[in-house]
């Protein structure tokens, strides 16, 4: 037999990676349970929630007062404070108060430009539930880091990008989703509501990766020997992680929108579900998140497809041949273009657009998994 010139696999790192994946999965699961507990216990104390909401408003007013006082007192650089007032019937007015040297200016925002009335959040203002929620966030961060380390050690063990097969691709995608979530929280965005679905997705993703797609850490098949693997596949992976969040937001928007409408028609009598829905952000906020994430990903997805086409040109002789994976990438792309168009078309924004966002994500999933498993194309994603 010929001597094979191949870099050895460092099994030590491969083993560490496996242990880290299991740990990440366990921690994601705990985080998921903690979020679930936050939703559950937060719901119990309606009273606590309402008083918290009131307290919250009070503290905002205080902030303004403080800012004003400070500015007038010191006569220094004026500051801006923000207040949100909520009138009945779901209308809000957002006021930015510019506390100047000798007076104040209110910048009033209303109508569509004003922020919608969001629910108070999972904890419902309950202190115990809030603590659970914060524990959940810490656990999510920990799990994301473990997951990240798992992916990195896997890469070290094989001396190559750690996304050479579906197992690695799925693991890396959970890292992206979790880091995106943690990143948004760190940036001060109010997205803790996303914690439950994100950790659920991570647990399921890692579980399926380990149970169905697992392969030992190995070298790449020749078809994947290309620096485009770094660019094209990592692009697809980042898109996947982010689009999951976009789809979650779209689904929640749909549900909340239906809820708000029925509530407006006084068809909702309260109860546990109503309690959960009340604590979710407003439908308009969820819609905004769904749009922002999907719109952010769309150019990246476009770029990913282009990178794939360049790679195909180098590997197979033509940049576009309607190979099943290419076809489904195209379908996914057009579906997201549909979504973006729908958002700009009267009569299509809102729920119909949300359905399109969800369908588009289903196309993405089918492309990543369905096509690899059920349809044999030229794309050889090893290890399935």
């Amino acid at each position: 037999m010929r001597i094979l010139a191949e870099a050895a696999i460092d099994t030590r790192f491969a083993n560490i990676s496996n242990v880290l994946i299991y740990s990440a999965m366990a921690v994601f699961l705990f985080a998921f349970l903690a979020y679930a507990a936050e939703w559950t216990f937060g719901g119990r104390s309606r009273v606590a929630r309402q008083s918290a909401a009131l307290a919250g408003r009070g503290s905002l007013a205080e902030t303004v007062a403080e800012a004003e006082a400070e500015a007038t007192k010191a006569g220094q650089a004026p500051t801006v404070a923000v207040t949100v007032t909520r009138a009945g019937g779901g209308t809000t007015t957002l006021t930015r108060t510019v506390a100047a040297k000798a007076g104040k200016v209110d910048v009033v925002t209303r109508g569509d430009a004003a922020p919608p009335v969001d629910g108070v959040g999972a904890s419902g203002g309950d202190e115990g539930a809030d603590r659970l929620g914060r524990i959940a966030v810490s656990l999510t961060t920990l799990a994301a880091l473990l997951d990240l380390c798992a992916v990195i050690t896997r890469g070290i063990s094989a001396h190559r990008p750690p996304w050479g097969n579906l197992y690695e691709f799925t693991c890396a995608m959970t890292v992206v989703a979790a880091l995106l979530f943690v990143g948004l929280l760190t940036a001060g965005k109010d997205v803790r509501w996303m914690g439950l679905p994100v950790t659920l997705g991570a647990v399921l993703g890692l579980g399926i990766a380990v149970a169905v797609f697992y392969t030992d850490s190995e070298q790449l098949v020749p078809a994947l020997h290309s620096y485009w693997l770094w660019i094209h596949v990592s692009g697809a992976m980042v898109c996947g992680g982010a689009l999951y969040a976009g789809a979650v937001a779209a689904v929640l928007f749909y549900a909340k929108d239906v809820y708000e409408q029925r509530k407006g028609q006084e068809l909702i009598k309260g109860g546990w579900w109503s309690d959960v829905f009340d604590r979710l952000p407003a439908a308009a906020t969820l819609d905004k998140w769904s749009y922002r994430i999907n719109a952010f990903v769309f150019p990246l997805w476009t770029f990913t497809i282009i990178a794939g086409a360049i790679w195909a040109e180098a590997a197979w002789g033509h940049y576009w041949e309607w190979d099943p994976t290419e076809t489904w990438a195209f379908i996914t792309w057009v579906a997201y273009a549909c979504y973006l168009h729908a958002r700009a078309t009267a009569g299509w924004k809102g729920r119909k657009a949300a359905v399109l966002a969800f369908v588009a994500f289903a196309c993405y999933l089918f492309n990543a998994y369905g096509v690899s498993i059920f349809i044999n194309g030229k794309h050889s994603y090893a290890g399935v």
Partner: protein
Amino acid sequence: MTSDLDAAERLSSAPTEDGDTGGEVGIGVVGWLRWMWRQLTSMRTALILLFLLSLAAIPGSLVPQISASPTKVAAFVANHHTLAPIYQKLGLFHVYSSFWFSAIYLLLFISLAGCIVPRTWQFVGVLRAQPPAAPKHLVRLPVYASWRSRGSGSDSNAGAGAERTLDAAEALLRKRRFRVARDGDAITSEKGYLREVGNLLFHISLFGMLIAFAVGKLFGGMGTVLLIEGKGFSNNVSQYDDFMPSTFYTADSLDPFGFKLDRFEATYQTTGDQLGTARTFQANVSYWTGSDASTAKKATIRVNDPLTVDGSNVYLTAHGYAPVFKVTDAKGNVVFDGPTPCLPQDGNITSVCAIKVNDGYVDNNGTATQIGISGIFTPTAATDASVKKLGPHSIFPDLADPKIYLTAYHGDLGNNSGAPQSIYQLDTKHMAQYKFADGTPLTLPLAPNQGFKLPSGGTVTFTGIQQWANFTVAHNPGTGWALTSSMLAVLGLIGSLFVQRRRIWVRAVTSPDGTTTVELAGLARSESARIAEELAELALELQDTAPADVEADAEPIEESAVQEPSADDDKVAAGPTTTTTTKE
């Protein structure tokens, strides 16, 4: 009210929906045509066509396509007697060139043109005009602030307030890179034109991509050729195994060049659960341009690393083994001596082979006949026990223990029947299988350098093994254009999705008592929450010139005009034009 209408002009020049344009549509052909054109270029139609396009692309991923794999299509046709003709009629074996797929994307692009051209036109108009005049009632805009100033600010002299405030606001807005214009007692300004530029660039680039793709289809082409180590190829149609021309790429368009496969190398995984998975493939070739092979240069072709010669690329697409056989006839003459490529069937390169001795063979009786040997080649043979159970198969793709399991026929190979033949398979319809003396069919395994005697005289010897590689030679014009326009599309998208277009107005009026009333108002698309911050910052910066030092809201300006915008009307998002609502 016209100024209010101007202000409320949508910040996107997207076509508005047109449910009620009936008034303009006259009866008659022109009216109908206009109506149809308007329908076709509406956003709703674009949306539906996009949706149809994605639906229409699906069958091509499920039904085998002629372009990708003619053999799979043939197999499908053979196995589905009722479905296949229907599929054929519907063009399901060539979805992406079928009439219905073409119809959808052509309609989409017509719609796109009908959308882009007026939009571009309109946008040029916007760029040439000043930012729209300030609405009369700034207070009605979604983001609004006002204060009064006696002008006791740092270095002011009372009374000159309005002018100075406007000057300051103008400077501040210019610093923020707004396009600014004076409009009487107000300043009007706008920013974020790149959004529209990006959107137009994106949609226009789609045309670029379509054209590049069409050019590739019309002027491009490819061919495939299988080369055994040591064999050469020169680029003309007769040397191709398979040549796929296009409308304008024919036998005459081929670039003159040639290459020779010196050696093919592969490495495979030798341990772990991916045992046998290929790790590297590489073809070492010598190539030349023109027809002079003596000027050959060396090159390596790998899977993701084609060789570019002139306007053509040479890709490595497949590889396999070619066992070398030597066949002699009853008189001892060598009638065949050479490699025969075998077709791999699985990851371990279990391959099927057909060795065809067309002429020269004469048997014991002096009769000329044709000889066919069909075999299964295994680079690393499975154990005998395993072969007995599962038939001949390879357990590793490299040549660790090569064997070929073969059986031989004599008679008519059927070459002259006119029907195309597979080089990997024998057509045994007119052939008889050789038998052992005891009457059982002659089948046996051979290792290299082993052979056997043909019952009708002569010998068959398995003398060695070579490798072959399959190459695709492709000419792809338009690729650079496709790349450029797709990159522009991404650039356009980034502008279109991330730039916020917005307008800010500032009005300052000094009343006889010397106080200046300053009003700021902003308008942006609803996805942008930043406009309020921007306005607040502006208000802050204006404090140096026009400090808020008169007790506010003694009597709010035009408060009577304020009304509740309803949340689900896009027009309202862009500015309240619906002024019919009465005050409670």
